[in-house]
């Protein structure tokens, strides 16, 4: 059944990357419990706009949990209280009437705030440009069925390939590490015969860029896995570490 919620929001407001930010308190009255979290923010934003107050900026696009654009820290948890759920798929029926909700951007040195809840995740693109691909050109590729791939392997690769690049793993990690993200791509490609050829250069170059971007190191806290809306497994990190070690011992 739908219910009407009256909420208090404490929202991080920050004009731009150079300004200091602060929390603002807003009332969010008469929110339908069937609304999604972002729809709740839309309603609040529309009310702010009518009062001439600038709406809260947040990234979003698909609102289906697949593009990876949305994300914020809700009451201390990246993407909020529901496991395996992006912020756009979180619905207000998971909150209670009169709740106070604290909403902050993902925080990490390598994810600087652009405005309010919007952060700069371009470091992820730069890491992938160093090796998150198979070096094939368009055209001249063999028939798709020329190389059989065991279903179990293909499924494992798909598990890793599901990463949406939202950066919740970084936000959840006390060291602001990007190991879950990087290892998901390294694993996806290394598990397939097409990607295996370049696996040594790939892991070396991607890890080097990850360090350069200022992401931290993994100390096995497992918080990334818990925050990941797509259930990317931490075993990918172990797989990446093994490859990294192997490629630094035996030069590529």
């Amino acid at each position: 059944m739908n219910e009407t919620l009256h909420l208090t929001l404490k929202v991080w407001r920050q004009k731009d990357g150079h300004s200091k930010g602060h929390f603002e308190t807003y009332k969010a009255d008469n929110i339908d419990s069937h609304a999604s979290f972002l729809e709740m923010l839309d309603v609040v934003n529309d009310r702010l706009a009518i009062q001439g107050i600038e709406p809260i900026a947040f990234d979003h696009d698909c609102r289906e949990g697949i593009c990876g654009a949305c994300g914020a820290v809700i009451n201390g948890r990246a993407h909020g209280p529901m496991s395996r759920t992006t912020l756009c798929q979180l619905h207000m029926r998971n909150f209670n009437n009169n709740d106070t909700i604290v909403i902050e951007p993902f925080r990490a040195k390598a994810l600087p705030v652009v405005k309010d809840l919007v952060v700069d995740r371009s470091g992820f693109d730069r890491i992938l440009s160093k090796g998150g691909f198979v070096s094939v050109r368009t055209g001249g590729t063999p028939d798709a069925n020329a190389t059989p791939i065991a279903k179990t392997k293909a499924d494992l690769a798909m598990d890793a390939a599901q990463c949406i690049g939202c950066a919740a793993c970084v936000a959840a990690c006390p060291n602001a590490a990007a190991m879950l993200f990087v290892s998901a791509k390294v694993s996806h490609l290394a598990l397939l015969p097409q990607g295996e050829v370049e696996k040594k250069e790939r892991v070396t170059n991607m890890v080097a860029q990850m360090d350069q971007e200022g992401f931290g190191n993994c100390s096995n806290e497992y918080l990334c896995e818990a925050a990941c809306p797509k259930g990317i497994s931490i075993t990918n990190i172990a797989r990446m570490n093994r490859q990294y070690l192997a490629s630094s011992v035996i030069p590529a």
Partner: protein
Amino acid sequence: MSLNSNIPSGPLSDKWTEHKFNLKLVNPANKRKFTIIVVGTGLAGASAAASLAELGYNVLNFCFQDTPRRAHSIAAQGGINAAKNYPNDGDSVHRLFYDTIKGGDFRAREANVHRLAEVSNNIIDQCVAQGVPFAREYGGLLDNRSFGGAQVSRTFYARGQTGQQLLLGAYSALMKEVGKGSVKLFPRREMMELVLVDGVARGIIIRNLVTGQLESYAGDAVILATGGYSNAYFLSTNAMGCNVTAAWRAHKKGAFFANPCYTQIHPTCIPVHGDYQSKLTLMSESLRNDGRVWVPKQKGDKRSPASIPEADRDYYLERKYPSFGNLVPRDLASRNAKTVCDEGRGVGSTGLAVYLDFADSIKRLGHKVIQERYGNLFEMYERITGSDPFKEPMMIYPALHYTMGGLWVDYNLMSTIPGLHVLGEANFSDHGANRLGASALMQGLADGYFVIPYTVGHYLASQPIPKIDTSHPAFKAAELETSTRISQLLSIKGKRTVDDFHRELGMLLWDKCGMGRTEEGLQEALVKIPQIREEFWQNVTVTGSEGELNQTLERAGRVADFLEFAEVLVTDALHRKESCGGHFREESQTPEGEALRQDDTFCYVGAWEFKGVGQAPVLHKEPLTFEAVSLSQRSYK
């Protein structure tokens, strides 16, 4: 101006091969002297940018998201078609061609569709080579599934995330070129204007969405791969940022808009449940394989579904279409849902929904089988609605999903503006009046990987392209136009929000130019659209300023363009007095209430020329001729 489709002569199946041979080539050493602007990083844009950079061109690639990987293509679920015939069930290039032409209700070009079918197999090879993890069988080979409108299994898929995996494949190819420096990437940039020099597309004006600054970029050719315009209807299955701005700006500079009234409405979406709603989520069409669609027989029956006995239920699709039942094509399923709701038999709190009931299948196949087939979808449905489809029937309703219309392009994918090429959902080229499932992904990648790399070279090699840069006065003029429009939006300081206007326009289009269209309703819409637009320019409120990240301003610009575009959309629907594919004119139906095409009068592409805001656009016709197929009326009884 006359439309020249540049379709090569010769037998249908040789046209593309011959044409490729006849296209001019750019000398490898000269390619790096050319700069190509690609707007869009979806399947079409990313594949084009990567492929052109591999050839040696200098590529500038733009998108409005924070990274190319988030383009709307990421959300496609079902799959991608190809004529591989791996299941040995009788598929072929010719059959894929035929199904696509028929599915498009005989309103697409034969030559384009044949080329699409020809390159479909290369796409699958390309994706596998990139490491796209398609679903596989236990023997290690690729798995296929079947999809609406086809009797063979030709759809390749990666769980329920095919679009994601294909886009990440194209994105990886793109990032490989970014790493090499051959593509320069410009995320969080929105194209505001196309720049013409001497009538030729030579650049774009973009707004940097972080700093708010306007930036100019010059190139030797411009490619738009900016997606479809479903969001004109406010609520749709598309991502929130999808827009018509880039295409509309090009249209205003001389690119014809073809068949804008061909829109696709998907029958199985989660219904609207409140005015706060921002989008409609697609539930995969595959659900209709095991779900039965019904509504109560009696108007206003408010009993819970479980307490409505069999005798009081109307399984209307099974009743009306005994041979296809719940699996009729998208347009029929959608239209019939509307009819029963219009009769007052709709369900749910708004009366705008029908049941999709799995109870019988659960009884017949068991909980476990249904869980395996649809577990993910049921979970997603429950997450959104809070209701469990194992216990209660799902509620579904049709929603705007895809737009077959788009900028007119010739066989080389060039628009009526020399140098401006259009790819993917943004062009009109391959789907006629209705698109079959799993064919949009195929078209986007065909255009980007296998068509444009040839045809753009031909364009560049065919005429001298004078050197210019952004100091040319045309850039200054276009920048000024853009900044004037932005200042105007910010200065209105009215009383209604951008979304409020967008919602009003969307509801009008949905009512008058949605699933069923009438002369009277369309006339009414043509009166109302200019009124909404006028009020928008007097009473919208856009907070914040120009020189910063300002999402309200971004939306305001897009809605302003939808408000102009909507008129040509409705004008097209009004002029096309026949029903075909996704365009159902209630005046043109068979005695059984099915869509009635009028091939004698309307067998053409309708391409509209811009004449000014609020001025009637001018229609140009490109006749469609069919040599390989004979036109027939669809029947699914």
